[in-house]
């Protein structure tokens, strides 16, 4: 990496936004407290100072309004990037996202495109009050017309936000908020993957472990522990939740014969449900064991003092690894 810098995820997204805004004057940022303050997580810090109030705007506290007006701006030729302050606050905008943003291109038979990015800090583990730790990605992955992605590291954060903004379709961009300050290298020369490619981030032979977003760190940790016990885990960072890069997952499962899928979201009708179903269809004769899912329980996200029990950790993943290897 000739041109590499070390950045935390929050700063990498910030740098990616800056790059996108420099390249295309039609890129506008909206959201609650994103201007002078730089957002509650400081992801947009400094952008208001650089680009001014015309391009970095504090929105009223009205999520449906933020997305609904972003749709109108996209119709006018802009590329709005809207920040929803917390995962649990996206629901007032759910109607606009699902009934309008996702469908307008199809409704108009392609006359309209909707290059709108919705940035959402996602997931738990930060000791927050209710509605600040949720994983709503499955709702959006279920909706045709939306693209849903989640970076797990600074390099992906930097490149994927730019690719999302360049997309002519609406993109839900889920940012792993617990990892915002996790540092890593960012290669400024070029993206190594397209927006919807999964990536094998650790080679292994015994079990395939699939994760996305902030669970990727936990998955790598579990794979490390497993190695100490003589088990070789292949870890795949999905990166994209809709569409899912099944080719990469299937290729790995054909090699290992065993699959564990981990995420923070409740498991019932979740992203892992889809992966389990599709892998059983596409790689049935290669499977040596049922697909085991490791996720949050099917309860409302608990109070902070219980969240470590709710969230899958390396031990829960290793327990699943033991179960698939027991077959």
């Amino acid at each position, binding site marked *: 990496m000739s041109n590499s810098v070390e950045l935390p995820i929050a700063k990498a997204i910030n740098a990616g936004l800056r790059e996108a805004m420099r390249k295309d004057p039609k890129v506008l940022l909206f959201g609650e407290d994103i201007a002078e303050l730089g957002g509650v997580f400081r992801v947009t810090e400094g952008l208001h100072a650089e680009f001014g109030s015309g391009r970095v705007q504090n929105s009223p506290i009205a999520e449906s309004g933020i997305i*609904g007006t972003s749709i109108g701006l996209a119709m006018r030729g802009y590329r709005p990037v809207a920040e929803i302050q917390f995962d649990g606050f996206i629901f007032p905008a759910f109607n606009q996202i699902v009934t309008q943003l996702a469908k307008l291109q199809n409704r108009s038979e392609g006359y309209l495109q909707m290059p709108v990015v919705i940035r959402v800090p996602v997931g738990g583990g930060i000791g927050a009050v209710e509605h600040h730790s949720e994983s709503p990605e499955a709702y959006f992955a279920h909706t045709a017309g939306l693209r849903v992605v989640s970076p797990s590291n600074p390099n992906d954060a930097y490149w994927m936000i730019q690719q999302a903004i360049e997309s002519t379709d609406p993109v839900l961009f889920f940012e792993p908020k617990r990892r915002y300050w996790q540092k890593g290298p960012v290669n400024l020369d070029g993206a190594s993957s397209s927006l919807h490619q999964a990536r094998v981030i650790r080679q292994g032979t015994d079990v395939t472990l699939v994760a996305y977003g902030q669970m990727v760190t936990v998955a790598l940790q579990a794979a490390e522990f497993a190695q100490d016990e003589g088990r070789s885990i292949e870890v795949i960072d999905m990166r994209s939740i809709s569409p899912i890069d099944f080719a990469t997952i299937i290729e790995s499962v054909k090699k290992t014969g065993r699959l564990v899928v981990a995420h923070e979201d409740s498991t019932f009708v979740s992203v892992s449900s889809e992966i389990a179903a599709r892998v059983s269809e596409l790689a049935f004769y290669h499977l040596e064991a049922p697909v085991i899912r490791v996720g949050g329980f099917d309860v409302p996200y608990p109070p902070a003092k219980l969240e470590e029990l709710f969230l899958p950790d390396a031990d829960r993943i290793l327990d699943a690894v033991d179960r698939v290897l027991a077959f």
Partner: protein
Amino acid sequence: MTLDASEPMVQFLSPEGEVRVPAQWAEYGEHLKSLTEADYLKFYREMARCRRFDNEATALQRQGQLGLWIPAIGQEAAQIGSGFAVGPNDHIFPSYREHGVAITHDIDLMSILKMLRGVNHGGWNPDETRFHLYAIVLGTQVLHATGYAMGVKFDGKVGTGNIDEDLAVISYFGDGATAEGDVSESFLFAAINHAPIVFFCQNNQWAISSRVTNQTKVPLYQRGAGFGVPGIRIDGNDVLASYAVTKKHMNDAREGAGPFMIEALTYRIGAHTTSDDPTKYREDEEVEYWKARDPLDRLEKFLRKNGINQDFFDQVAHDGEVLSEEIRKATFALGNPPIETMFQHVYSQQHPLIDEQMAWLKNYEESFGGEA
């Protein structure tokens, strides 16, 4: 029977067909001065065309040719008057009953019938026509209109004095939609951005079976005031008031006056849709009261008083017959859309899942050897 009739309301053309410009509305009356006889005849012709279209579409629905019809009968003056007041660069965001506004912007009427038949979801080009697609989820389009108007403002296409470039936006919605949060949020976003938009609320007094008193405690033209959007009530069955007031406020918006709300007090003479039965919830006397205030009748009275002879009305009736015949033929000739259309334009770029499912369905259908 009239809704808070004591509220001030702009009216120029009375139900008796008399035109009068009261002093308090003189500023609006100015916009009538440039109207020629040809304009008045155009208003009547297009209102009649709209009604004929409506009646024919209802008949087509009853014959099973359309899945549903959404009549606009009674609202022609509100729609035709305001529609013709929209400027050549302005953008229009309708709800789903704005057939009259569509007529003023040369939308192919078959596009509307295709949608109600289930052939597509609209399919006209919103950029080219400046008449955006019908929106079925109430109030959603008002935020899109507001966002569009914000974009116009960001583009610097407001108040430059260049009438070839400046533009404003008009968003249509009904009394029922005002209860939706999206409409309130639209007022707010429009006000704080000083966006060039006119909110045109057709208060037809019924949201399916709910009276407007179920949607609001204050007259609707006052609804925007708390957000910083002033408003006025017009007689929505008076095409001249609808034209003049919309003209002034679209001009003002284009020139940088910010958002404004027009409440057009009208009446839904027909059902909410062909699936509805209004006799279950409203009295005949109320409908009769409003029929006596019919927007076409009063313009016809005015035109006859001003020397327009029977030949004109015969021609309009004849044109209506021709339109009906054309629409019937075209509707009967509509085929089903090809399989691919279901999978197209879901995404702008290739999508593996959709490609796979389309291939599967085509293959599956072909497996029946054309006998499916």
